[in-house]
Structure formats: structure tokens, C-alpha cells
């Protein structure tokens, strides 16, 4: 009898063209926080999906509490007290928080002692209590569609807790959270561990692992590289094992050389669907050779600013100038032509045609002009050559090269594809919204270097990020947004992380 609560032995899982897990063996002890580390596409999500019953392995065995099991379904996993918070949330937008949490385990009452019904009122009460007891307050009657990402994540966690899971799997839970939210979440996770639960945590952020995890397994291209004791391993070593080379965390960056003004935003106001002003009277400028970062807690209007500049939402007031030209009322296509690249926040919803192949997606911003087409006729050879070149240049990994259906690519590689496409436009203004969300550290380093490289070539960069570290690391100028208003615009040297944080929380004003 081993002291492992979870044991996975010789797990292999293949997808067409790729071995996602290749003979992986792991043991996880009861009551520990066990981290999984690896590059994008290393097979972390796949391995955990196997444990939570979403996939069945092609080979290998699983033992839970010493007993051999075949986990055939998530339900089965739940019966074994295994619960997973997925990387891509599995929530019903139209349902309330309560309805989502109780789905599959609803409390039932009877009308007139005869007709069973789902007792939502009771459930609301239960959920409210549950959420309070774990310090994850939510309003049970709210609809998912109206929630912020971090709130949605709370719901996912509550879902698992409601099911009384003993073994909790978190797949990149912090990728979408602000620093404050991350701290809060890590606190929760530690609290869960202390109450006796076993936690498996997938993340790309080594400092998080360092902070909370006990042990950490490193995967590379489907294979298990090593299992480390976190206390005794340095962050650098972990990174090195994971990427297979030395990684630097501070981006090397020459001092900025500001050139002429590229983007000028004047008194920009944006209303959302309900007519509420989510961006109010925002003005700023970006020069060639400047990285302007907007820092802020999620949903404070930063994405709407980026959308308004790119033309995805209408500005209800103010003006936008690009290279001196008023583009406030231009079409999206015209703006792209005038010189805007845009890496959107939601890559699957906005960035990609998931059912198209990779080369088609890589050409999606240029298909209509030379050399990709001539007089309206597409040239497929150009697409293929262009695609192959980008795959090499940006190290985009996929099962079948340019012919891979994008849907089957791992999240990080999807992101790389978008970045590659947008940088290749060579636009004078490049907008990056959350460019490193869900991307492994090796790739983050690359992306940061690419952004800086673009700046050095004289491009104006607008960076929207929820990660304060990233902003402090990369930005030349920082604008802090709170409640749709720019609170502070200053050079990054003149601000400390703490100050920015205070502006972000609305605790400080100009």
C-alpha cells in the first residue's frame, strides 16, 4: 500500500499526429499541493482530463487510494471525489450561478408530494452558505453571462467544492486573474489544502508554484521530465527543466527612443450595450518606439479602449488619430490598412477561425491583397509559404503543420499563431491585449522580446495587460485605468509597482 492518493502509471494518450502523453507515471500524496509544469502543448491538460474522466487513456493504469480504477466519465471521477476546474470554463452562460453549481446534483422537492422539482430556493441558500464558508462570496442568483472571469472561476471552484471533491485539479486558474485575485485564489487553495484536500495545480507561473506547491512535475512534449521538491528547487532550475534551456525573467531592454507621434486618443468615450459609459474621456498619445501599457483590474474599460481604437466598438465621443489621420469613423479594414495590428483578448472567439487550417488563419489579415491575392483571386501557394515561414519563425507547434485544424492546437500555440500573424503586418501601431495569457514562460519570454523588438524598430505599442509584472517589465509608459478613467499616465521608471497597484484599485488619484 503506497501513501499516494492518486497514482497514474504509464499513461499514454494519442491524438491524430501527436502523442499528448507519452508513458507518464506520477504519484500524488494526500494533502499536498502538486504542481504540473510544462510548455504549451506539453500535455498537462490532457493528463488531468484523463484523471477527471474527460478522456480515456490509450494505455496505462490509474490507482485512486490504492485501488485500480478506470475513470470512464466525469461523473465517475466525481464519485471518486475528483473534481476539476477547467482551463476553458464549462459553464452555461444562460444559467444562474446556483443552477450551474448544482447541475448534476440538484436538490429535489415535491409539489403536492407528487411532482418532483428542482428546489432552486433551497439551492440558492445552500450555495450562499457554501460560498461564504470558503470565503468565495457570490450572488447565487446572478447569471453567468453577467459575471467577470474571476467570478466565473469562483463558480467553477464552488462547483467542485459542492461536489465534496477531495482531489481538486486546477488547470491554469490564475491565467485570467489580476494579481490581487491571484493572491486571493492562492490563499483559497492553501486553505483547501490545510483542510485536508489534495490539490493538483497546473500553471505557467513559477512564482506561484514556489509560493504554494509542495512538489512539482515537469512535462515536456508529452514526457515526464522530473518530479521536483519545490522547497529545494530554484525557480530558474524549474524553468530550465521545463523549456530545456536557460530562461531570463527580466526582459533585456534598451532605453526607449521615442519618435514621432503615432496614435493620439482625445477625450474618448465608449458606451456598452446597456448605454453605460465604460470608457470616459480618455486621452493619451503613443509615439513610435514607445510601449504604452494600460494597467488596471479586469473590466475597467481597458479592453474597450483597445476595441475602440481597432474599430470593433464605436466611440460614442472623442477622436482617434493615427499618424495624424482621423480614423474615428473608419471601418476596421481601413484602420488595419492605415496601420493597426490587434491581438485580441479572446483568441478563440475573435482571433481565430477554429475550423480553418493554420495557414488560412495566418493569412487572415492579408488575404485580400498582394501577394496573397490578385484581382480577387487567392493564391494558395503564397498562403502555404507564408504559413510555413511563420511556423518556423515563431515556433508554432502543431500536429500537421500548416494543415492543422486550429481547433486541435493547444491554447498557447493558438496564441502564438495570432501574434505571428499580427506582427507580420508590420503596422505602425500594434495593440496587444493580454498577449501572454495562458502562454508558457519560454513563450512569454519570446513574446516580450518580440514586443520590444517591434518597439526598437520604431513601432508604437499599446499593451493591455492584467499582469502587473508584465507591465512593469515591458512598458515604457504606463497609464493606469480605474472605472473607465485614466488615473495616471507616467513613464514606467517614475512609478513603483505599489503605486500602480494603488491607482489600479482606485485608492489614489492624480
Amino acid at each position, binding site marked *: 500500500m503506497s501513501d499516494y492518493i492518486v497514482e497514474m502509471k504509464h499513461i499514454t494518450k494519442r491524438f491524430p499526429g501527436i502523442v499528448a502523453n507519452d508513458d507518464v507515471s506520477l504519484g500524488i500524496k494526500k494533502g499536498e499541493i502538486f504542481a504540473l509544469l510544462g510548455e504549451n502543448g506539453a500535455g498537462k491538460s490532457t493528463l488531468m482530463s484523463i484523471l477527471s474522466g474527460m478522456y480515456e487513456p*490509450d494505455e496505462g493504469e490509474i490507482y485512486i487510494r490504492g485501488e485500480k480504477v478506470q475513470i470512464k466519465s466525469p461523473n465517475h471521477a466525481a464519485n471518486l471525489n475528483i473534481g476539476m476546474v477547467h482551463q476553458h470554463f464549462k459553464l452555461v452562460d444562460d444559467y444562474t450561478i446556483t443552477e450551474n453549481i448544482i447541475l448534476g446534483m440538484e436538490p429535489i422537492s415535491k409539489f403536492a408530494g407528487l411532482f418532483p422539482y428542482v428546489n432552486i430556493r433551497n439551492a440558492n441558500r445552500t450555495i450562499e452558505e457554501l460560498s461564504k464558508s470558503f470565503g468565495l462570496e457570490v450572488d447565487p442568483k446572478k447569471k453567468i453571462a453577467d459575471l467577470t472571469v474571476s467570478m466565473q472561476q469562483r463558480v467553477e471552484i464552488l462547483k467542485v467544492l459542492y461536489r465534496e471533491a477531495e482531489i481538486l485539479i486546477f488547470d491554469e486558474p490564475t491565467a485570467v486573474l489580476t494579481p490581487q485575485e491571484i493572491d486571493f485564489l492562492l490563499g483559497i487553495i492553501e486553505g483547501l489544502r490545510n483542510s485536508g484536500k489534495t490539490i493538483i495545480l497546473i500553471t505557467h507561473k513559477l512564482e506561484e508554484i514556489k509560493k504554494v506547491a509542495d512538489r512539482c512535475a515537469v512535462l515536456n512534449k508529452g514526457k515526464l521530465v522530473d518530479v521536483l521538491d519545490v522547497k529545494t528547487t530554484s525557480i530558474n532550475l524549474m524553468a530550465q527543466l521545463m523549456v530545456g534551456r536557460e530562461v531570463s525573467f527580466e526582459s533585456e531592454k534598451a532605453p526607449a527612443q521615442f519618435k514621432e507621434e503615432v496614435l493620439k486618443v482625445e477625450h474618448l468615450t465608449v458606451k456598452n450595450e446597456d448605454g453605460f459609459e465604460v470608457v470616459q474621456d480618455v486621452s493619451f498619445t503613443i509615439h513610435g518606439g514607445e510601449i504604452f501599457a494600460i494597467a488596471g483590474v479586469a473590466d475597467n474599460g481597458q479592453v474597450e479602449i483597445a476595441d475602440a481604437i481597432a474599430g470593433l466598438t464605436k466611440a460614442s465621443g472623442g477622436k482617434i488619430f493615427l499618424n495624424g489621420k482621423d480614423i474615428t469613423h473608419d471601418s*476596421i479594414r481601413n484602420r488595419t490598412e492605415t496601420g493597426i495590428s490587434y491581438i485580441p483578448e479572446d483568441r478563440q472567439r475573435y482571433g481565430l477561425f477554429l475550423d*480553418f487550417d493554420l495557414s488560412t488563419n495566418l493569412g487572415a489579415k492579408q488575404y485580400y491583397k498582394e501577394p496573397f*491575392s490578385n484581382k480577387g483571386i487567392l493564391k494558395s501557394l503564397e498562403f502555404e509559404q507564408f504559413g510555413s515561414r511563420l511556423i518556423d519563425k515563431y515556433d508554432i507547434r502543431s500536429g500537421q503543420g500548416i494543415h492543422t485544424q486550429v481547433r486541435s492546437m493547444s491554447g498557447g500555440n493558438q496564441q502564438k499563431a495570432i501574434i505571428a500573424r499580427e506582427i507580420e503586418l508590420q503596422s505602425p501601431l500594434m495593440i496587444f491585449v493580454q498577449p501572454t495569457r495562458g502562454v508558457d514562460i519560454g513563450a512569454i519570454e519570446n513574446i516580450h522580446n518580440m514586443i520590444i523588438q517591434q518597439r526598437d524598430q520604431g513601432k508604437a505599442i499599446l499593451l493591455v495587460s492584467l499582469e502587473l509584472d508584465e507591465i512593469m517589465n515591458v512598458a515604457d509608459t504606463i497609464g493606469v485605468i480605474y472605472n473607465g478613467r485614466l488615473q495616471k499616465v507616467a513613464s514606467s521608471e517614475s512609478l513603483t509597482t505599489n503605486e500602480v497597484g494603488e491607482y489600479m484599485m482606485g485608492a489614489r488619484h492624480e
Partner: protein
Amino acid sequence: MSKNKKKVSLSYRLLWPIRNEKWQPITIPVFSILISFIAAAIVILLLGKNPIIAFYNLFQGAGIFPKASYAGYKSMLTDFLSLLNAMTPLIFASLAVAVALKAGLFNIGVSGQMLVSGFLATIIVGYSGLDAFIAKPLVLMIGIVAGGLMGGLVGWLKYKFNIHEVVTTIMLNYIAQYVISFFIHMYYIDPVSRQSKYITEAARLTLVDVELANLKMDISLGFILAIAIAIFIKFLMDKTVVGYEIKAVGSNRNAAKYTGIKVGKNTVLAMVISGSLAGLAGVTYYLGYFASIQPKVLSNIGFDSIAVALLGNTHPIGIIFSSFLVSIIDEGSTYMSSQAGIRQEIASVIIGLILLFSACGAYLKHKVSSLKEKEVERKDSES
């Protein structure tokens, strides 16, 4: 365990013709069609008839195989030409469905669009006495424009008011049917046939009873056009910016918008193209095949074409073949019924079965690839 392995390799062997992924777009439909013919054969056997003969009759009736005897002025060639004549509108209609599907739209109103364009062409050109050289191209033009406008209306309502195209097209089907019935009854009725008056020969898209070598043939002028247009649509969808944009909108509206594609414009454009194709189906049907319009009757083609388009994998060349097959069964059914004594409904049943099995193509594909993996494993573990 070993028994299980045997089973794997047996079904794997059975599926050998469709193992090669590269050829699957062709092999899978062919395979499904074979299975459905086997299933239909069983049905026919159950009726106590000989399926081989029945199928043979089917093909004889459609002019693919020679009949034992021919009526005066008829031969296999004339039968085959009738087949092409009947097939022409089906190709257009299926292309119409396919183009809309590429844009993520479901054009269930092909029948209505056919009717409207057929009607307008009938009253504008069909009774005009215009010279054939002007009349025939004009009929095609009206078909394209009328169908296109009607399709465009559907697209516009969808884009502007978010009205689901399925509802719009169903409603327009009914409206077209009744309004046109009204006009036919009021102004264009042939009191004897109770259909619209017959159009002039000059306006017809089928040359009827062309006497040649002691045969009387119906030559469909639209057929060549249908083939040409199918190839054009293939080119348009795969090789042009227009096609790229339409498919992008169909694949992901948000992403399309973000890439700078005008979603509204392309929704309308796709429906205009779809409607124009339906319009061509309409004129080749009403002014080619029939030369007259039955009031208050929607052509079945509009619905059959949905299935035919999907059987052809929404691929224009595939559609030519699927239309060909379905038309053979349709056209041959009268002769089969007369020869083998099998009721015509059985022809519909066969068509249904073919479509049914082809609907499972994706499953077959999936099955084959998973069997393939297992087979690879088996080989690995054996060696």
C-alpha cells in the same frame, strides 16, 4: 483479448476501401451509397422482387442502360437527355443550399425563390414573343436577379433585424406560393390546364422535341450552364477573396468582424448568390422542364436539394454527382415501377436511404481512423 483483436482487424478489413484519408471525400460517399443500395436491395427482396433487376430497370429508365424496346422517336439517348433536363434545376438548387451553408446560413426557401423567379421570368419573357436569342438570356437574367433579390431580402432581414433565416424563408415560401397563385388565377391562367399559360418556345430553356436522326430529343440548355456554374462556384468559394470572406463569416462571425470583414455585407451577399442560384433553378425548372407553373405548389426540389447538397459534401463538384445519382433514381422510377412492379415510393425510399447513410459519413470517418489507430497498436504489440 485476442478475440477482440480479431474483431478489430475484421471490421478494419471490411472498411479497407475507405482507409486512405486522402481519398475519403470520395470513397466515403461511394461507400455509403453502396451500403444504401444493399439496404434498398433488402427492402426490395422483402417485397418479393429481384433487386438486381429493379436497379437495372432504374438505370434503364434514366437512360444509363438500354431498354429492351423503345417507343417511336425514342432511344437511350433521348432518355439520357431527359435525365440531364430533370437534373439541371436540382444542381442549381443544391448549389444554392451549399453556398448559404458556407456562410452559416440555412436556405430552406429555395422552393420559394425558384417559384418567384420562375414566375417573373414567365410573365416578363415567357409571354412576350421576344426572339429566342434575346428571350433565353433574358430569362436567365431575370432568374438570377429575382432569386438574388429574394435571397438578399432574407440576408438583409437576418442582418438588420436578426430574424432567423429559417423563419423568413418558410414564411416567404408560403407568401410566394399564395401571391403567385393569386396572380396566376387572375391574369395568367390557362383555363384548361389550370396552370399558368404555356410560355413561348422562344423563351424555353429546354429545346423540346428536337428532331434529329429520327429521334425527338429534349435538350436542356441549362445543363451546360449548370456544370459551368458549379465549377465557377467552386472557384469562387475556394480561390477568391469573396469566397474566403463568406466562409470566414460562416465559420466565426466575431473573428470575421475582427479581421475587417463586413459581416452584414457578406451575409447579404451569400444569400444573394444563393438566391440567384435558386433563381436559376427556378427558371430551368419552370421555363425549362415544364414551361408552365402549377399554382399553390412548391417544388420538392427545394427540400431535396438540402439533402443533395449535403450528400455532395457542399462541394460543387460533389453536388453534380449527388444530383446525378438522385436524378437517376427519380427519373428511372416510373420505368422501374412499370417493369418490376415496384411502387415509385420505393424510389423515394432508396433516395432516403442513400442520404441517410451518407449522413453518417462523419461517423464512418471517425470509425476508420480509430480502427486504424488500434490496428497500428495491434501491429506494434505483435511485433
